[in-house]
């Protein structure tokens, strides 16, 4: 019984690493650019299909495809900000929501047209099945552990970038007071563009692990978006390490729910989210 509970807990924690990866980009969009990006999940799925295309049709190995994808997604983030989102940024809350909702619809239908409705995933060979036995009935998968480690490293790197670099000071200044930033000569739109380029890079990482850990299809973006939203709200908007905690909490809730009854897995996560948000509307952690 103890081993069973321990295993459920460990699998939940490891799943939380993946959920944190889904959420990091959205947390940056909301926290820095003040953009509630409805297309976030679809952008992750788009990037996964990008990796799929690069590996299956262009013949690149997965690592090379990933390296090629990062600048493309960063460029897409920068381009979306400079070409589209900046035009609606000061028009209130609704226009950016509608624009990103439109982007979401375009991505879903574009992917359906290009790739069909089949579910896909990446082949990861031995990594897929490799695991370590901790004790009787308790296993740690290599890929889930790698996912969690990447999430921790990514959060640490972004934390240092934002709070210990000159670029981070610019991001925080523009996020805190865009009008003041403009008044003193900071190029606000360019800084926002670079922030979304960073989001694009994090989306590439999330897309890689989405395809390695789960199936995806053209319409699976909104489900990723909901997970990302729940994680950043649980963790406390504006707290990077809270994202990891929020992801782990959601992962454990789903893991426990799934152990009780498989169809309960997703519902359990949502119920825990609703319960905690009633208890602590500000999230689990204080905003930095």
């Amino acid at each position, binding site marked *: 019984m103890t081993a069973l509970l321990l295993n459920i807990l460990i699998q939940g924690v490891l799943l939380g690493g993946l959920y944190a990866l889904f959420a990091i980009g959205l947390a940056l969009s909301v926290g820095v650019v003040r953009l509630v990006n409805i297309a976030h999940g679809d952008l992750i799925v788009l990037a996964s299909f990008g990796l799929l295309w690069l590996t299956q049709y262009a013949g690149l190995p997965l690592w090379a495809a990933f390296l090629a994808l990062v600048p493309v997604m960063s460029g897409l983030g920068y381009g979306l900000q400079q070409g589209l989102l900046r035009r609606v940024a000061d028009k209130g809350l609704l226009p950016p929501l509608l624009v990103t909702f439109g982007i979401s619809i375009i991505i879903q239908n574009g992917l359906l047209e290009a790739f069909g409705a089949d579910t896909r995933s990446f082949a990861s060979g031995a990594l897929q099945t490799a695991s370590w036995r901790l004790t009787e009935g308790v296993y740690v998968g290599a890929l889930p552990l790698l996912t969690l480690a990447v999430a921790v490293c990514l959060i640490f790197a972004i934390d240092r970038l934002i709070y210990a670099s000159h670029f981070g000071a610019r991001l*925080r*200044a523009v996020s805190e007071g865009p009008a*003041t930033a403009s008044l003193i000569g*900071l190029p606000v739109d360019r800084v926002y563009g670079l922030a979304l380029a960073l989001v694009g890079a994090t989306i590439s990482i999330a897309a890689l692990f989405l395809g390695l850990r789960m199936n995806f299809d053209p319409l699976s973006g909104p489900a990723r978006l909901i997970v990302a939203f729940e994680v950043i709200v649980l963790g406390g908007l504006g707290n990077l390490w809270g994202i990891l905690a929020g992801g782990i909490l959601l992962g454990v809730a789903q893991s426990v729910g799934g152990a009780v009854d498989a169809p309960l897995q997703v519902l359990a996560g949502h119920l825990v989210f609703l319960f905690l948000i009633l208890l602590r509307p500000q999230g689990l952690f204080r905003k930095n």
Partner: protein
Amino acid sequence: MTTEPVLAVSSLSASYGKFRALTDVDFDIAPGEIVAVIGANGAGKSTLLRSLINQAGSATGSVRLDGKEILGLPTAEIIHRGIALVPEGRRLFPSLTVDENLRLGWEVGRRASARAEDFFNLFPIAAELRPRQAGALSGGQQQIVAFGRALMADPRVLLCDEISLGLAPRVVDEIYAVLPKLQARGLAIVIVERDVKRALKAASRFYCLLEGRVSLAGSCRDNTRADVSHAYFGSH
């Protein structure tokens, strides 16, 4: 004026939508000169300063910095070319440290070396504040940092918008005492100030705005109190 102006403004008009805030303003300032812009609330003083850095609605006319037209250029480009603003209300980034606020000023400016040391020599107290969050400082300390952030850009023209507003007289004295030192280095300083007496004392020339137009301009010494009062309040 004997010296070529560093900043020359002619026929400057600015509007916020249908509201015209400035009409045909002519204005100039030479290197090493302090000029005061005075006027009642809503006269267009702050709009004039913001027009110079493309932050005031739509503007027409001409603004020349070192003989080159800058009207309509992006704010970042104008500040990079040598104009910096100490905004009304200080407008620091409260969660950033003093050091980070100052560095942002340096980054957007002409990136001259040793600006920080220079600033800390002018305001020794600021050196002690460097690691502290700007939002945790007193109003006077924040004003000094806001002043420093603008100086870090190494401007040729410094625009000071209501730098005495809401501050203790001692702090205001401290900031105003620095202006002649900056003036001696060739910095052109424009002061927008509600405290008319203080502004006219610090400046050599002044412009008085009334309903967006220059109602009086000239030497601070040559105009009588009645002249200034008439230009400030209009005909009654």
